[in-house]
């Protein structure tokens, strides 16, 4: 049994991010972290590979910036890490991305389950998982809040999904692609041994040619990045004679703002 997960490095969520004079996005020298949503998918990948008596692999697509996320994944307990990089390709584009990802899954050959985080906390496109599933022709089960069972010999999985209208329990054949929500587990922290193992690990890099993939043209082009217009907020602190007077003053303001 082989479970694969995908992850990336993102700027710390507390970082200030802005567009510099050259029009590039920067967060200064703040460190990157593993995409926070992926802590849950990493944990689930480890748990599934252990309970299925198999192995786990984590893959990042993009520059060496993502090695940090891969090392964190190894430190948590993922067995193997892999980075896919193609010089000159727009690896952020989801068509290019999913073509590379599908190439890696085919080259690995024995994958039963692919686990994604809900979204990237930075670009937040929420489309990578679907496009990979589509390219592989595998079933997609998104927004999974619980795996009821995953039977790797019967090759079936049953999960609970948090959909907009309620909670759905569904089952499907493996292999499948799932994306998981934070309710699914409590991610473990890397321990000392894990961190040491990760520090020493060599991370192989596969190019499109290594995977025998012909990359498609990028579907989109980012034209420019902008700092959002500064919001002119003048804060009015309301303070009346007593709490009722203050509350009435607020109610009055809200009427005048026409938001009620």
């Amino acid at each position: 049994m082989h479970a694969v997960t995908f992850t990336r490095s993102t700027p710390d969520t507390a970082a200030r991010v802005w567009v510099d004079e050259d029009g590039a996005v920067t967060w200064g020298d703040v460190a990157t972290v593993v995409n926070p949503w992926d802590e849950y998918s990493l944990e689930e990948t480890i748990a599934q590979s252990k309970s299925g008596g198999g192995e786990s692999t984590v893959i990042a697509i993009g520059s060496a910036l993502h090695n940090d996320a891969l090392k964190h994944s190894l430190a948590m307990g993922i067995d193997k890490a892999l980075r896919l990089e193609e010089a000159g390709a727009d690896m952020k584009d989801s068509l290019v991305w999913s073509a590379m990802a599908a190439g890696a899954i085919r080259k690995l050959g024995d994958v039963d389950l692919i686990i994604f985080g809900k979204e990237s906390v930075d670009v937040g496109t929420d489309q990578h998982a679907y496009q990979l599933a589509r390219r592989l022709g595998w079933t997609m089960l998104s927004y999974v809040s619980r795996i009821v069972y995953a039977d790797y010999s019967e090759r079936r999985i049953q999960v609970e999904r948090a959909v907009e209208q309620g909670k759905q329990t569904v089952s499907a054949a493996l292999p499948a692609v799932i994306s998981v929500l934070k309710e699914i587990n409590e991610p473990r922290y890397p321990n000392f041994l894990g961190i040491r193992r990760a520090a020493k690990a060599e991370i192989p890099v596969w190019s499109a040619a290594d995977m025998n993939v012909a990359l498609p043209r990028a579907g989109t082009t980012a034209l420019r990045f902008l700092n959002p217009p500064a919001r002119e907020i003048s804060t009015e602190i309301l303070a009346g004679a007593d709490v009722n007077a203050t509350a009435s003053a607020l109610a009055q303001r809200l009427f005048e703002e026409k938001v009620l």
Partner: protein
Amino acid sequence: MSVFAWIETAAGEAVSSSWEALSAAAILAKSLDTDTAAIVFGANCDALARRASQLGATRVIACPDEALAEDRLDAYSALLSQLVEKHEPEAVVSAATNRGRELLASAAADSESGLISEVIDLRVEHGSIIGTRPAYAGKVLMEMTSNSATTFVTVRGRSFAAPTPRAAAKPEIERVKADGIPKDPPVKIDDFVAELGQVNLADAAIIVSGGRGMANNPQAAPAGLSGNDASIWKAKHGFANTLRPLAEVLGAAIGASRAAVDAGYIPYKHQVGQTGKTVNPDLYIACGISGAIQHQAGMRGSKIIVAINKDAEAPIFKLARYGIVGDLYEVVPALTQALEEKLR
């Protein structure tokens, strides 16, 4: 040629944010000098077609196949891809709901087309569609264009005004058959528990949110509960008996900070912020929330922000148009009463 708008349904009824997508599609169609085609699948197509043409669709492409259950991502993707191949639309637009994101991403992969997701603004320049979307939790905006004949677009909720109904001409409906789509659903639905009667955070015009401060409820916890259990009890009662009445008077949805969710005061689906929901209501009332940057990431797009916090130095006041420095357990009931009197 056309601009497609996929009208998502839930139990046969159109999801309200789909009409916003139809508005966005109509804007593109106007700039591109083409028509707006509403795409409706499944049961109830006729009623949906009529409604879509009242709301601005120039024509409707319907697949009224009863077997097209709403959860059939595989079938919907195959069908949409067939329509894209046949009509070569300039754009396909849907709301950035869970199902909209999945469907458009899948169909875009089929035709190797560009997808611009979570768009808050659209325009056409020299014949190219340009979408503006937030990135890095709204700290940065990006403008994107696609490199393909068809551009797929998902639009963020409440970014495009819902269309106003007009007297519809008899809609021109093109009916298609669900031919050549997978017969057997790959996914078996074993159970479904609907959650009804809740205002959806993403669609809400008003949101009342509670944070860790909800635990400082002066109401005494039942004897026998102490420490953490007592805090959880107090906070839950605060959400139910103090925040909910305010939300009810306002017809608002209830939000929460991650601290409140992590402490077990309220389920995760209420969480607003970078790892919760992004919301942009007209009015956001933050009660007992400090305003950490990750919380701001989810709500700074709100039109008017009100902060109720006992700490005058809390960062939330920097975002707020109106603030009250005080105990939420005194202020919120007083505000509820004041609004009740005014709204009656």
